[in-house]
């Protein structure tokens, strides 16, 4: 049987494209810094490097919602959900209202400095509303288990303060190298 001649130029072009895609440096859209290809967040300004940040954010929220559904028996009934909703001055990415005055607030971490402010805002809110609140900080980790310099800096005092006002703080961290993640 006659073998088909290899279209080398075509093959090479395809490999070249793949290499270009895999090994290109990721340029930060915000500060212009060139990051290694496997970074999710910019090593200089800590902003996400994904082409479409909304896709990453949505994926993180879905991951948390899935976990919530898997452990639904541990939670009170879901009453309502809201997106991009404010508590005080802070806009949360997703709010889940549960029965018996419980609330879960999802916040996708992008900037280190904000975490303490967010907790303080929710404390202020809960001084009046007296609800049972869980603030969930969603973080996407890279292969090494780091989220590229965004290490939550909430000190013990703030966490204690929050507890006094029925507020729990949770970090929901996901490794970006898992299966089915939007970054590939």
């Amino acid at each position, binding site marked *: 049987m006659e073998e088909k001649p290899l279209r080398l130029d075509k093959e090479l072009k395809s490999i070249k494209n793949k290499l270009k895609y895999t090994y290109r440096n990721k340029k930060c859209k915000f500060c212009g810094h060139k990051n290694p290809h496997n970074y999710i967040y910019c090593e200089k300004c800590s902003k996400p490097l994904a082409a479409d940040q909304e896709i990453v954010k*949505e994926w993180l929220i*879905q991951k948390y919602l899935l976990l919530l*559904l898997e452990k639904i028996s541990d939670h009170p*009934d879901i009453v309502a959900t809201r*997106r991009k909703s404010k508590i005080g001055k802070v806009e949360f990415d997703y709010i889940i209202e549960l029965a018996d005055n419980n609330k879960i607030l999802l916040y996708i971490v992008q900037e280190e400095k904000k975490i303490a402010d967010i907790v303080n805002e929710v404390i202020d809110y809960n001084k009046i509303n007296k609800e049972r609140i869980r603030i969930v900080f969603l973080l996407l980790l890279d292969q090494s288990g780091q989220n590229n310099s965004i290490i939550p800096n909430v000190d013990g005092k703030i966490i204690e303060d929050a507890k006094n006002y029925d507020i729990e703080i949770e970090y929901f961290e996901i490794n970006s190298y898992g299966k089915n993640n939007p970054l590939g």
Partner: protein
Amino acid sequence: MLFTHEFIYWPFHLILFLIVAYSTRGFLAKRYKPYKEGLSRDQVKVSVVIPEYKEELSILEKAIRSAIYNKPDEIIIVCDDGRKEEEQLIKKLQQEYPSIRISFISHGKKLGKRTALALGWLVATGDIIVQLDSDTIMEPNTINEIIKPFAGPKVVGVQGHPLLFNTGSRVSYVMGQIIELARDVVCKMLNGFLVVIDGKIAAYRRDFLIKNIKNLLLESWGNSKIILADDRALTYFANEQGYKTVYQSTAIARSAAEPTLYKFITQQLRWARSGYLYLIKDIKTGLFFKAPRRYRFQEITYLLSPVSFTAALIQTLFLNVQVVNILDESILLSTGLNIPVFLLSLIIFLIGLGLTFALAIELMKLDKEEIKKLRIKFIDVVILGLIGLFVIYPMTLYAMLTYRNVTDWLTR
């Protein structure tokens, strides 16, 4: 009698039962009128949620495209089988229709249909969620029609009008289509308090769905979790909580008929099992007694149909049917023809069965145009009658006895 040459199955009892049940349903359905006025698209945000599990890609593509032509605010496809091909298909559609938000949810592990649906609802941003099966194709105005009844504040669930398209076996297509057309009559009769809002094409208020996520995911029977019949469960919750579940016959969508007779029978088995499970649940929780009379009538006839089949069988086995003997003798006397009793019995049985089936279609006032499209011949009626009598009815009896066997997706 079993031990005489006259033995043949004579389901008089069943035929009488069917005629009474069908004509009553047809009569009660007469009052129904579809919702002409109501909520319009500019008043609400609509999300379409399509749960998917091992669906044939060409059919899935048609389903998504039909949703796109209906111009909802967003389309969410929840894939539970983690195939890469679906992702590629959706990316292609996203590029083709950049103005419509098409989301794809896949988390690489099997969630089960109920969890997949609940995730879709949580992610959705619409006030109304249109649930579409991955093998179902909407008509261009289906969403406009299905949202109309939501103008009523107590309406939380709307059943669209599912019909079938042929994918292989003519028998399963014709039989399935007749069942869908019969369901159309039942839904018209039960409008306001439906037995089930079929998930092929349904719409719900998102608020209602969100509030019932925990009920749906933790629903159990005895010690086992119910993982089948999400549509039956949601309708049950709505009825139990005092909401209205209504039918919009003008919201048409066409679903893929089962390609083989075997698959059709397993589908019917699955439906019948969930039907009996919720019927018992209705009675146990007292919903049955609170429900309107027409709902109770429907449930009782559903319960009695396999019982009636058994009664007909017993009647055949233990009662001596003299009719054929008398008829055979009179034919011999008048014409001199000596027809074997067994053969005469068989001829009468087949003609009777065909006539009963044809009469049932007429009595139920099934959609004549759709029936015409099926081009049913007398031989079809006899074959369908035989399958109905000797396969479907014994199967419903089996389903009744094994209603606890509620399993996973089971569709493919």
